[in-house]
């Protein structure tokens, strides 16, 4: 049966990346050699990659009635994402992230969440779940009261219709609202998180114990991202530690979002856990070879996996690599 669409709910942002020689002290100024404007927000990055894997994605979120909002819509539409359910608010502007990057690569971030935080339960129409086979949430939706209410409303809608829910926790939101996250866990089919996050969620230091604790909440799959070390996957019948693929890292922005896209794609399309993990790791790794969040998909990840297969036939994830290559190649 062909998989339906993924509904993503999270922050819709515009990233403003300023390359500066230094962060000035109060009262002083500095000149940026570059200012770049990109589509941002975890779910935006994930949705773009899903679309480029030929997996239809639908977005729920709020933007302002400003040019940044126009930009978000244009970029998502350029990727083919269904933007019909994005709400435009006049009370607040589109979410903006300012990222100052200094020459040693250190990044300092300022986030204005704006319109994102005022998406209301009544902004979510009943038909939003038509044709949807997975709901993907960003952890950021749980840190503002109204948006959080809307997220729980959506979870309840999904439960009534039997649509599975997946969450990419993120560290920052989890640190802010650990209790809310513990309330979300029992509603999840899939949980994508990181090492520190899993420790915060479960109170356990060991990966395996963390996975066991999370699976005990009723999830079908837990993925713990380990950055440059790869990822740990656990499901009720098994577990797997997948090392990262060797790549020349330029910028890790959006790598976790790319990983999520690969994992939920594999899961939705009935890939084995090893193949889902291989695809997720490949997309995550590949995205670090681009500056900013990468617009990558099947056309980039398939040749990448093929070259890994040629160069490292004994790779620990070889079965998953083989399966991903076969299944992606079958896609027209």
């Amino acid at each position, binding site marked *: 049966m062909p998989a339906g669409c993924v509904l993503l709910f999270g922050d819709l942002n515009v990233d403003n990346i300023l390359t500066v020689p230094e962060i000035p002290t109060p009262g002083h100024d500095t000149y940026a050699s570059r200012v770049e404007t990109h589509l941002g927000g975890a779910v935006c990055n994930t949705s773009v990659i899903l679309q480029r894997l030929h997996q239809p994605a639908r977005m729920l979120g709020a933007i302002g009635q400003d040019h940044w909002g126009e930009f978000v819509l244009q970029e998502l539409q350029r990727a083919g994402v269904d933007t019909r359910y994005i709400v435009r608010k006049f009370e607040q502007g589109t979410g903006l992230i300012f990222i100052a990057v200094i020459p040693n690569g250190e990044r*300092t971030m300022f986030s*204005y969440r*704006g319109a994102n935080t005022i998406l209301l339960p009544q902004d979510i129409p009943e038909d939003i779940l038509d044709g949807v086979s997975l709901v993907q949430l960003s952890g950021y939706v749980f840190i503002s009261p109204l948006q959080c209410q809307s997220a729980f409303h959506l979870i309840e809608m999904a439960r009534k219709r039997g649509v599975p829910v997946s969450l990419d926790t993120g560290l920052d939101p989890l640190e802010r609202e650990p209790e809310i996250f513990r309330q979300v866990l029992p509603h999840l089919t899939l949980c994508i998180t990181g090492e520190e996050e899993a420790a915060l969620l479960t109170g356990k230091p060991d990966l395996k114990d963390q996975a066991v604790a999370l699976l005990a909440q009723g999830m079908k799959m837990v993925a713990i991202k380990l950055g440059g070390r790869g990822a740990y996957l656990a499901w009720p019948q098994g577990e797997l530690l997948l090392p990262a693929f060797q790549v020349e890292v330029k910028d890790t922005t959006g790598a976790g979002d790319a990983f999520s896209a690969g994992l939920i794609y594999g899961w939705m399309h009935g890939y084995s856990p090893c193949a889902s993990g291989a695809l997720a790791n490949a997309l995550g790794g590949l995205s670090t070879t681009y500056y900013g969040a990468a617009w990558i998909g099947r056309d980039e990840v398939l040749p990448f996996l093929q070259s890994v297969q040629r160069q490292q036939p004994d790779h620990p994830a070889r079965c998953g690599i083989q399966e991903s290559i076969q299944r992606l190649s079958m896609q027209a």
Partner: protein
Amino acid sequence: MKSFSELTILSLGDLVSDLNVAIQSLPVTHQGHQLVDRVHLEPGGAGNFLLAGARLGCRMIALGVVGDDIYGREMLEVLESEGVKTEDVIRQPDGNTTLVFVLADNHGHHVFLGQVGRGPQVSLQDNWKAALRSADAVHSYGYTLNEERLAPTLLAGMEYALACGKPVFFDPGPHVANVPIETRWQALQRCSAVLLTEEEIPLVVPGGQGLADAPRLFSETVHLVVVKRGSEGSLALSADGRQVEHPGFKVPLVDSTAAGDSFAAAFIASWLQGRPLLDALAIANAMGAAKVQKPGSGRQVPTLAEVRAVLNGTVNI
């Protein structure tokens, strides 16, 4: 006397987008992540001048260059919403808008992260010439001499306006310090009035120290020098040796941003009305004093009613 609404004032260059980001605390911690309560975009630079003139009721025309980007579009939209004419502003698809990110915390500390606009060279095109001819006065900033794509055209535009018999005001601003000396002279040879602060006098008068050297700005073209003195008011010197001083208005200081730009708009408008220099200075000082009582810039420049309130009937506008 002409009313403000009968006057057309053109501002050439210095179109800047100020993005004000209200953060929790400065100094900024490296690698940190702060949530921001508020972000708002305001026209900066000449934008303050244009908005202040529009608030008085003058017809304001913006000429300049922006990138065809979000910052440029948002900024022009704000200007248009206040009645400033922007249709002749060049929007470069392959250029970018001059930007200033102002990070401000709630203790009144600021940090500025800027980007000078870049893009293809622009020339003094026919619609710009027509706009310059349609204006009663032209205002320009030394800051624009830093903008490579526009600097030669700024000079050409000032020269053209002067040749058309238009009064051309020039505000060198502190950033003129980064402009080659010869370029500064070229600007001074192409204006009829200079508006500046005491501190800026050495930047445009060779060997100049301060106020006493202001008359050295007079030339074949420059007939009027206006010195902005902040809370001390302002003074005007004309080439015929007259010197007029206004002490300013004592008001509580909240934020002096954009006070100089607002002052300039009010001075030029009042001067164009043909008012005595002292009245023009009083109105300009009142505009500046009304501004410093308000936080921010852009749409925070004073309204006509706020200027009137400061004047308190001493001069009627």
